[in-house]
């Protein structure tokens, strides 16, 4: 079973994502900000990371840049999941090492589609 770290400061979003991803047979771990996510990755690098952009303590983009410098940090497939929908922001995320990008609001169909496009299914 593949492991996915869901990183979002909204408990509701984490819960919604968890439900959908568990149906897609992922094992889920949660983090409420970038720093928590970094600590979780240092303990156990996941296969996939669903990542919010704007969060307290450490943003998603700062987390991603640090993650890609960590040992084994090139391994997880990172999918942004954010309200940021400007082309410049999307390009910035891809440059920082994101594999896919989805814009909120989302539903199960979009999440499934994005995970498929990222080669996770």
């Amino acid at each position, binding site marked *: 079973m593949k492991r996915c770290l869901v990183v979002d400061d909204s408990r509701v979003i984490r819960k919604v994502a968890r439900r959908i991803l568990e149906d897609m047979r992922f094992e889920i771990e949660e983090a409420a900000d970038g720093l928590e996510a970094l600590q979780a990755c240092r303990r156990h690098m996941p296969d996939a990371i669903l990542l919010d952009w704007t969060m307290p303590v450490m943003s998603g983009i700062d987390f991603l840049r640090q993650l890609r410098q960590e040992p084994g940090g090139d391994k997880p497939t990172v999918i942004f999941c954010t309200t940021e*929908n*400007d*082309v410049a922001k*999307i*390009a910035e995320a*891809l440059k920082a090492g994101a594999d*896919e*990008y*989805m*814009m909120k609001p*989302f*539903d199960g*169909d*979009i999440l499934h*589609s*994005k995970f*498929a*496009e990222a080669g996770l299914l």
Partner: protein
Amino acid sequence: MLNDAEVALIAREVKTRSGAVLTREMGGAIELRLMPLARREGFASVHELIGAARIRADQALWTAITDHLALSDTRFFRDRQLFEKLRTDLLPDALARRGHERIRVWSAACSTGQEPYSIAMLIEELRQQGLNPAADIVGSDFSERLLVKARAGLYTQFEVQRGLPIRKLIAHFEKAGDLWRISDRLRAAVAFAPHNLLKHPGALGQFDIILLCHVLSNFDPETRAAVVLRVADALAPGGAILLGEDETLPEACEGLACEGGVVTRKDSARAAA
């Protein structure tokens, strides 16, 4: 709430015009989909709309009702394997077969345009890989309402996130307020035309590749075979019809062979062998 007789009447009129099969169980969904049309036409209910369609001599309301019941369930790059087959085999083969001539590709039930625009993106990518693909892409649907949206090339955030990888989104689209607009280059690459699959496609010309995906299930078995045979008449020599994932060639399609969702003429398969 529509009664059984009204649903049966709608089903009969729609089948005559588009071939689509509607069942009594769809009554609730039919009413929901026709409500905006009823309001637009100044009726208080779908029941009133149907009553007026019955007595109007010009059939315009039945045409509008059929149009509003046209399915628009589509997405970019629907059926990944099919598009992979197009990218690696079918498009390069057709280009090689045609030499310096333009190849012709037809998306035969294109709904709101995602399928022909996906083909245009593939061809654009082949160009970036150093090939020099010259292609005419035609998208057709019987629904003028769906074609208006297809021609506009404007999609919601939900629509561009279904099937479209993010790198393709930022390469081929730009933001237009809350919507995403496909590039002028891709919009110019696709010609949209109204066409009813119950009619012969002769006027559209001949095609090297025809996508006939996720539309046959709307018809009854007899109509399915007739549609495939009519569409096959538009195949250029060596051409192929592509069916959607899990779709098969209907029975009674003599002269055609299907392997892995790719339908070819038996005589051209023999010629190739």
